[in-house]
């Protein structure tokens, strides 16, 4: 049974789906049980997702366990620009940033095995960081002013950070464990945006061509006209990185559950990306017959790129107690040093130095300057009977995204998540589900420097999260 289930799970993970958006790009709901408790799980860590929440928790799980968690996110993202270009057609319900299809699955797999009374091994595959944004609510052939206003800052983004983490837990005392997980992190990043913004990079081209196209006209005024004669292009950047990471945990559990205390630290990861950049431009723009069809393809050739960015470290501390009416109450405080995510440098291999026709720069730096983020999580769990447990929780998530970086890639706000969940135990199997309603605090952005990017305005978001887990338990007989 276990072998067959494992085979199915491996098959499932061979085709992982893109993860959803988290706080900036963190994902907390990687275990159905923990998510039902508002993710306040650092001092609980009583199922396979302990490998993610607090790896020391696997040391308190005798026997062999396999757990598969599935999360489905339905994100509803809306943007109402405050200063669209004159004449811009803004949909009555704002621009939608919801990905299609609306249901984004995220899967995790955890296996733990008690090797001896002192040592427990585990292995987890999970995605603590992910992003899926899609503001392409238009077709390239649509009139420019009916398109999403912030497309110059981004139209689509995907970030998937898969952690493959073997973990070992060691019993320090009968009531405490420490653990270390060494992870192999595979990251995939994809960014897409429109280029040749008539109020941005298109102006640079306009200035360069001003005296040729409109001699005798004020350069800046001419540049603005020329910039509107350029086609709106798309740039796509995709790359992958493989990096090491580690995860530390400590967990103390009172024998009767009166007081539990947990610490967890997940390392930052610097991802060195290798990939490619491609550019596309529509035909039949007004200037094309005059400048020739190959001007822009030569200026923006597809090419290999390199880049890097850092995902933050996570520090968690949690306490819990089951002393009150057999009800497990837990609380977590987490800190993520998102300040590491300051910028994403992208280095192009074809520049003006190597190709006189090329206009791709040696380096383009996407600057975000995130701030540190923290979360407060609170959860309760109450056994209804020996077979059924009920849960509820609350999660406050402070957005790391600073005002100037709020846009289509990170339409982020502080969040309030309210969760409910339940587990049904049947023999050696546990079935768990949860639901989370995530309110995003409405965010109004008005940053002067973003005016030309079209990202100033109101961001109104909401997300539904559903999750299920199947956990299979088998006792271990120690000799």
């Amino acid at each position, binding site marked *: 049974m276990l072998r067959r289930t494992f085979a199915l799970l491996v098959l499932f993970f061979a085709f992982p789906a893109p993860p959803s958006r988290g706080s900036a790009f963190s994902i907390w709901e990687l275990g159905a049980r923990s998510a039902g408790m508002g993710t306040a799980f650092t001092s609980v860590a009583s199922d396979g997702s302990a490998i993610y929440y607090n790896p020391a928790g696997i040391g308190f799980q005798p026997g062999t366990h396999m757990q598969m968690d599935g999360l489905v996110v339905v994100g509803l993202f809306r943007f109402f620009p405050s200063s669209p270009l004159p*004449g811009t057609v803004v949909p009555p319900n704002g621009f939608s940033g919801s990905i299609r299809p609306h249901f984004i699955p995220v899967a995790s797999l955890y296996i733990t095995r008690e090797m001896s009374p002192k040592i427990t091994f585990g292995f987890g595959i999970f995605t603590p960081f992910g992003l899926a944004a899609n503001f392409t609510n238009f077709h390239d052939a649509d009139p420019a*002013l009916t398109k999403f206003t912030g497309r110059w800052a981004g139209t689509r983004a995907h970030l998937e950070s898969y952690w493959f983490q073997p973990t070992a837990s060691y019993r320090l005392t009968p009531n405490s464990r420490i653990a270390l997980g060494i992870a192999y992190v595979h990251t995939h990043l994809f960014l897409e945006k429109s280029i040749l913004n008539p109020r941005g990079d298109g102006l640079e081209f306009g200035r360069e061509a001003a005296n*040729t*196209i*409109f*001699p005798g*006209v004020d350069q800046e*005024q001419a540049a603005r006209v020329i910039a509107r004669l350029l086609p709106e292009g798309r740039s796509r950047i995709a790359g992958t990185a493989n990096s090491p990471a580690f995860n530390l945990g400590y967990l103390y559990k009172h024998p009767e559950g009166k007081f539990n205390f947990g610490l967890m630290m997940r390392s930052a990861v610097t991802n060195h990306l290798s990939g490619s950049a491609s550019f596309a431009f529509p035909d039949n723009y007004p200037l094309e*017959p005059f400048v020739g069809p190959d001007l822009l393809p030569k200026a923006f050739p597809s090419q290999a790129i390199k880049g890097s960015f850092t995902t933050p470290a996570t520090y968690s501390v949690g306490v819990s107690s089951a002393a009150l009416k057999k009800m497990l109450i837990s609380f977590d405080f987490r800190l993520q040093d998102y300040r590491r995510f300051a910028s994403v440098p992208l280095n192009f291999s074809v520049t003006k130095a190597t190709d006189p026709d090329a206009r791709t720069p040696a380096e383009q730096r996407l600057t975000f300057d995130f701030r540190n983020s923290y979360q407060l999580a609170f959860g309760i769990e109450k056994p209804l009977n020996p077979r059924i447990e009920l849960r509820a929780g609350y999660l406050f998530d402070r957005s790391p995204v600073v005002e100037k970086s709020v846009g289509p890639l990170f339409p982020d706000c502080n969040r309030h998540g309210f969760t409910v969940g339940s587990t049904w135990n049947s023999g050696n199997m546990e079935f768990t589900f949860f639901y989370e309603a995530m309110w995003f605090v409405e965010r109004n952005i008005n940053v002067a420097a973003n005016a030309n990017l079209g990202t100033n305005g109101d961001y109104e978001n909401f997300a539904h999260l559903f999750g299920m887990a199947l956990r299979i338990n088998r006792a271990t007989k120690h000799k």
Partner: protein
Amino acid sequence: MQTGFGRFATAFSLAILSLGFAQAQTLDTTTFVVMGEGLAAGMANFGLSSIVQNKSFPAQIAAQMKTAFPQPLIQGPGIGDVLGYAPLPVIAPKYPQDQVRIFPAQPDPNDEAPTLFVLNLSVPGMKLADSVSRRPVSPLIQRDSKQTAINLILGFPSLILNRDVPLWTQFEYAKAMMPTMVLVELGYFEALDAAVAQDPARIPDPAAFHATYSDIVKGLRVMQAQVIITTIPNPIDTAYFMPPPVAAAILKAQSSVLLQGYNIAETDYVTRNGLNVISKQLALRNIQPLPPGSIMTAAAASDIQRRVQALNTEIANVARESGALVYDLNSFFHRVHSSGVTVGTTKLTADYLGGFYSLDGYYPGSTGHALIANDILMFLNQSYGQSFPPLDVVSILKGDPMVQLNIGSGPLYSAP
């Protein structure tokens, strides 16, 4: 003839229409394109040349809005046929006209080249129907002077480029420029042509006019451009058509000489051509029957005015249907006709040689263009909540020869 109340009602409805749209629209002046005929092109004094092109009201508006407005500047003596005179044959340029199109000056004269595109697409003689059908045709210089003008304005330098480039109609050209703001001044030539020829039937059928105008404005609005369309001035309000007392004053003659000597009714109009013929006859003291086109009867004038008003009604309808704004150029011309304009200490009138119009009698001089520009700027400020500064008309007036013209002194001509 339109009554005072009718004119008031039209102006009032246009004002209401304009205000209604103004509340919901904002103006982006980045790419300001003008589709027009001789008036917007800056035609004056029997031809289109850089002298008045540079002072044309669209150019003045663009300067005040601080937006690019490359024009197809033409060397003097200029191009274009003059209504009321037989068309002149098109001849190859010769000294002092060499390249015809003026190239912007460059530090190194060898670098001088024409602008690749122009944004004032107005062509003398351009009719509304022409704006969607007439396009440049090679060779550059044609026997048809209107085609030559189209070539030099819409087809230059495209016609001489060694590339397969599009040759756009005026409407196609305007769309290709990805405009944010378009001013459409079309229909005046049709009205002038009919009035000068005294053939009201030349004025287009309102339904057909509406259809073409609507296609143009909707085509521009689809691009989210702000479109300002001007009503058609009444040709009878211009200096080309003078009541007998005005003509008599210019001729230094008593009105009775004209009324009785030429059998003109008091309600008729003496045309610019008629004025010239009469002046020669009076100088020779030899009154003879006047050639056709010298006098316009009140009935014909009324018919012209009625038909022009019908076209203006269609313009208002097009604006309402498509979300364009209407600037009432007709009312402005009428105000000048009725009461003149005072600039500094100088009173300009709509009379021939009165300072507002140029020597052709129906297109304004530099000061007239500046006054139109200021009125449109004020309209834009009110409609879009802008604060474009007005032009200093006094300084323009000082350099305008049309304002320096004076009626000669001496005794009145009394009888042959």
